[in-house]
């Protein structure tokens, strides 16, 4: 009698498990297909006298080193255009999407707070302050000037809040609430300085500063890729490897400690890692919002809260979201990518929340 019950539940469990697994696989497939599609479409928008299939051919040929076309032939031009203008842009979008959404997922798990995003500890306002002082006041924190001056300034500014939090954490015991509150205090301070600087300047400089603040993927060249890529790759691998610890964290601090995790240390290490990753991206593309906050939520609403899957799938969803928004922004309207992203993304998000079934074991 009891055996029957067990086998039935086991079968049921199996079925449920496969169903959940297939949902994850479907989401992943959709994302990867979408990303590949937008790589082609984007290249097409840069150089439109070839077909969609040929763009993939040209990209592939370049990757395998088979790109010695006859100079000034159609393929030669296509290769140059796509490789020098479209590919860096796409790569930056992919890296930024991955990095921001992975940081968002990490932060939400660490703080066990659905309102947390990569910028919660004040990274964005610090970076913004750095960049705006360079743009408006012309003050740089290092000896580097010009375009790179803004970049280094933003990076240094982005690290200030993290440094403050780390310094304080040596003195008092940090709970997620303390970290969040200190981050909020710091970011309010920097934001008010930024507002002050922006009010006191002329319209043209204001516009440059504003565009930086909103975030933009325009004008990305190969020069921006290496640093972002390295930081994001190393960081992502580290985060992906620590999914077990993150799952422990979601059980609550006390349970995590009793299961053998040094929560304080782990949280600070993660914060440092995350600050470096976010700073690396924000420095080049400015403050792109929405994706870091919403991509992990979308993933959790679809597949549940296991960080083993949430983190990689957040990367995929975030990248797709950013690429799609960027394509639409460039193709149909001259709008900042962040605006388009929230315009498209928030209805999707709203529908997902409203049609979310409790059975999927969602959320906190």
């Amino acid at each position, binding site marked *: 009698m009891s055996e029957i019950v067990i086998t039935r539940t086991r079968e049921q469990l199996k079925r449920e498990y496969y169903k959940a697994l297939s949902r994850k696989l479907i989401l992943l497939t959709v994302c990867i297909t979408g990303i590949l599609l937008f790589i082609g479409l984007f290249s097409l928008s840069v150089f439109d006298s070839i077909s969609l299939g040929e763009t993939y051919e040209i990209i592939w040929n370049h990757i395998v080193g088979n790109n010695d076309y006859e100079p000034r032939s159609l393929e030669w031009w296509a290769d140059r255009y796509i490789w020098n203008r479209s590919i860096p842009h796409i790569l930056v979008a992919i890296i930024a999407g991955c990095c921001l959404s992975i940081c968002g997922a990490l932060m939400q798990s660490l703080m066990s707070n659905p*309102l947390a995003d990569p910028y919660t500890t004040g990274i964005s306002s610090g970076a913004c302050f750095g960049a705006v002082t360079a743009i408006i006041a012309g003050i740089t924190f290092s000896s580097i000037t010009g375009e790179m001056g803004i970049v280094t300034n933003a990076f240094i500014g982005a690290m200030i809040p993290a440094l403050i939090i780390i310094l304080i954490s040596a003195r008092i015991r940090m709970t997620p609430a303390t970290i969040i509150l200190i981050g909020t205090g710091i970011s309010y301070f920097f934001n008010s300085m930024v*507002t002050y600087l922006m009010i006191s300047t002329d319209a043209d400089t204001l516009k440059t500063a504003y565009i930086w603040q909103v975030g933009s993927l325009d004008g990305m060249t190969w020069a921006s890729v290496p640093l972002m890529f390295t930081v994001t790759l190393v960081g992502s691998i580290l985060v992906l490897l620590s999914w077990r610890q993150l799952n422990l964290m979601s059980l609550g601090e006390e349970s995590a400690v009793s299961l053998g995790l040094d929560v304080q240390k782990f949280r600070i290490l993660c914060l440092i890692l995350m600050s470096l990753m976010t700073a690396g991206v924000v420095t080049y593309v400015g403050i792109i919002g929405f994706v870091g906050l919403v991509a992990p939520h979308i993933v959790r609403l679809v597949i549940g809260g296991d960080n083993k899957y949430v983190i990689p799938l957040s990367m995929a969803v975030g990248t797709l979201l950013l690429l799609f928004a960027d394509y639409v922004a460039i193709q149909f309207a001259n709008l900042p990518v962040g*605006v*388009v992203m929230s315009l498209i993304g928030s209805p999707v*998000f709203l529908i997902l929340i409203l049609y979310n079934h409790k059975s999927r074991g969602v959320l906190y």
Partner: protein
Amino acid sequence: MNRIEEAKKEYKAAERKKLMLILVFVVLVAITVPITLGFGVYKISLVDSIITFIQHITGNITNPKADTFIWNVRLPRALGAITIGAGLSVAGAVMQNDFKNPLAEPYTMGISSGAFFGVVIVIVSGACIIPGLTGQSAYMVNAFVFSIIPIVLILLVAKFRKVTPVAMILIGIAVMFLFNSISQVMLLASTAENLADAYSWRVGNTSRIGWSELPLLIAVTVVAICLVWTLSRKLDVMYAGDRGAQSLGIRPNRLRIASMTIVSLMTAAIVSVSGTIGFIGLVGPHIARMFVGSNNKYLIPASAAFGALFIAVTDTIAKVTGPDGLPVGVISSLVGGPLFVYILIKCRSKVWM
């Protein structure tokens, strides 16, 4: 027995201390208001301004010009500032309590972005919900109507299915992003002057408040604060978590929605008058909590008193920076940000978690 007596005494002493703290804040507010009357574009010395004020009350006006400034411009502004500070701070305290989230604030449900959207519609297209209305009153009406859309949405959803606190927050985030992106698209397609208008509306400002809108604002705020204060015992129970609250005889979801609706309506009224004043709604309750703890019976009045004091002081500083100087929102973050971090480190507060 002795021990019990001692504990009782200690408890009474702690309660008295909390009451004293609240009283101190209230007294400070009462001192700040007359002082703030002396600051502004038109130079009137501190003593003169207080004399003018008393003269107006006794009906014996000697300096009509100063009297106009004090009575028609500065007094409503000062009263508006303390109302806004108290209202936003209490709204923040209730939201943080409802969602058990230290990042929650009055605007978490998307009220500010809804209001902004309403104002942008007036600025760009000139259309108002009530036809024929123009100018400042059109801004206010539209801001109020659009800022309650997110609340209505959440109430509708809650009617048909069970909404967890997290789902409410997520709905708020979604609505906020949606409204913000539409406003931004509309503004980017519009002229530079419209952008400047919208931007200056958005950065919260107390200088728009006059006698015409003040009575309604004060009435709404006072009623809302009193209502949530009567709920304070029930709100306390929410700290026990939803299940704990349920077993103590409270319907957490109902209470959450009710209190959220009350403070959101108040916030909508405030935002439609003053624009989005940040910082105080988030940080005011935290600072009050560090002084009096999480007991809502004291926390709500303490938040109100502290918020009123803080905005009254920062508004005075804002007036000192001149007519084109910094808006009160900027000043409050500039002063309050470092102050907040300092208090946080000093108190090593374990009020949260």
